[in-house]
């Protein structure tokens, strides 16, 4: 697919290039012309130093061999897609690979017509165009965003997966540099009533997706975000404007934001009552469970990779917490009997992902690899047994259990939690 589009673009490029090259006297023989064609052909030259390279382009494309793809589910209006964690480097998620979760599809919104209405318990109800919002003092901050259903596929003890990739299990996690205006700036602008305790945030999608958010969070670090990784937010992430609640479950960071109502109580929308509530043991259901607690997972080696050799391998993965900074990640290569502190890649940003590394000399024996994150509150990423004990087994939301990967004697890696429970 990529090569087809490349060659259809290149035909015109080639004509322009060759006519220019003929005029410049560069094409003297048929072989010269063949070389110029070859540079655009799907088959790369044996020696790239012997063939001129491509020209500049307005929009770049990935190398033909690099084909990271989101993992999409069924094509329904309420659906999701997952970030290929095992194929990425560092911590930033390329915007076109950021996970998706839509409740009624991706709306087609033009920034020039989009407006944010702020009203309710305010002195001055106001409407803001995107140009208005961009004129306010802005901030840029790097935060992870994660769906609270992430990891839920490995909570049911009767259906513990084996052949599952980091993407399929934990790909509802992405990290971006977000740019926008603190919501507190806008609430100051409209004169929010100090007695207000909640807001209602509402999207302009076909679900008019709405969530109530406590005022304390809004005034702390919440953003009205319009930028993502150096460009405008992608349509799938809420173009042209989204709420961004750092460290909190992704659903509450309402996309395509069109309205904020300042209130003194939650609205009890469908997605904070019927969904995104967590039934516990004892017949209770946890509501407004916003925080994403500390998590980590190894992204290499992981299914479907097979280690081809024994010897030195760098175990890598991501750790994150919605409660501030990750302070430590422990690695076990023996199923949790012993632990070693992993190296954390600086900078360790609050409410962002951190890449960890651990050099491992694999001796060829079957090994269970586990990562365990610790955050600045002292919280230690729990085992699934601890979560079952604390919560019961009726919710898969907020499953932050220690992920386990099994390296077989043949080097094949699978999800290995089933061997420990």
């Amino acid at each position, binding site marked *: 697919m990529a090569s087809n589009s490349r060659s259809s673009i290149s035909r015109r490029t080639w004509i322009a290039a060759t006519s220019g090259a003929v005029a410049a006297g560069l094409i003297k023989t048929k072989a010269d012309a063949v070389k110029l064609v070859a540079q655009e052909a799907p088959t790369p030259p044996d020696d790239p130093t012997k063939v001129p390279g491509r020209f500049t382009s307005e929009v770049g494309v990935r190398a033909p061999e690099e084909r990271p793809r989101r993992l999409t589910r069924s094509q329904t209006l309420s659906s999701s897609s997952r970030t290929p964690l095992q194929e990425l480097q560092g911590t930033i998620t390329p915007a076109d690979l950021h996970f998706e979760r839509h409740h009624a599809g991706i709306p087609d919104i033009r920034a020039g017509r989009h407006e944010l209405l702020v009203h309710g318990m305010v002195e001055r109800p106001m409407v803001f165009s995107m140009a208005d919002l961009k004129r306010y003092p802005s901030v840029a901050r790097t935060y992870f965003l994660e769906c609270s259903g992430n990891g839920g596929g490995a909570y049911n003890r009767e259906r513990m997966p084996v052949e599952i990739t980091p993407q399929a299990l934990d790909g509802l996690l992405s990290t971006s540099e977000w740019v926008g205006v603190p919501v507190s700036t806008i609430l100051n602008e409209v004169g929010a009533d100090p007695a207000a305790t909640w807001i209602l945030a509402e999207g302009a999608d076909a679900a008019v997706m709405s969530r109530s958010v406590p005022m304390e969070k809004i005034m702390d670090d919440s953003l009205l975000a319009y930028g993502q990784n150096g460009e405008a937010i992608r349509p799938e992430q809420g173009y042209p404007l989204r709420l961004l609640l750092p460290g909190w479950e992704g659903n509450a960071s309402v996309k395509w934001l069109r309205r904020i109502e300042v209130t003194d109580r939650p609205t009890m929308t469908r997605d904070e009552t*019927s969904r995104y509530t967590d039934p516990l043991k004892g017949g209770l259901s946890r509501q407004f469970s916003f925080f994403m607690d500390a998590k980590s997972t190894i992204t290499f080696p992981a299914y479907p990779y097979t280690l081809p050799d024994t010897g030195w391998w760098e175990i890598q993965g991501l750790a994150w917490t919605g409660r501030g900074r990750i302070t430590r990640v422990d690695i076990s290569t023996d199923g949790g009997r012993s632990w070693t502190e992993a190296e954390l890649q600086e900078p360790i940003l609050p409410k962002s992902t951190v890449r960890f590394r651990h050099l491992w000399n694999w001796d060829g024996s079957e090994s269970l690899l586990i990562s365990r994150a610790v955050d600045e509150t002292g919280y230690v990423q729990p085992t699934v047994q601890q979560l079952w004990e604390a919560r019961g087994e009726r919710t898969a939301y907020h499953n932050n259990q220690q992920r386990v990967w099994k390296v077989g004697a043949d080097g094949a890696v699978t999800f290995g939690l089933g061997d420990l429970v």
Partner: protein
Amino acid sequence: MRRVALATMVLAVGCAPAGSSSAAGSSDGAEPPELFGFGSAASAERVAMWDIDVKPDGEGLPPGSGTVAEGEQIYLMQCIACHGPTGTEGPNDVLVTREPWEEWPAGRTVGGYWPYATTLYDYIVKAMPQLTPGTMTADETYAVIAYILYLNDLVPEDAVMNAETLPAIEMPYRDRFVPDDRTGGSVIR
């Protein structure tokens, strides 16, 4: 829309402290204003046009009403394809629970889980029917809610839903919803 000339009002006050979040520096050393004034005043009509959410106490519910019988006709036309003939067959969300569950909850149905009846109005009037969202009138919305509640044995067959009756419905499991008690630190909850 009328431009709000607030920035000048505040400048007249003198050296008002910068807004709590307006931490940007200014190039000439001047204090940023308490208010910038970028944006427009929202008219009451504009607010009313978009302020369609419904609170648990019924605030936001519009005039109008609907019966179970009217709701059944709407359900058969608008809802049955996704939610099934009796609200239990899918393929989309199961809406109905008639018998108490042995272990709560065995699903997220209206009668078996939803804590507030007003959420039905807030959700349906915005998001349903899925392919033509936001097209149902207030009367139609009340009616289809009456029918869904009737299917869940929460209202009798002659029930009428309106801005007074809907928030008065006591959903059976409301008291089971508790605030988040996770706090970080050493306790796993």
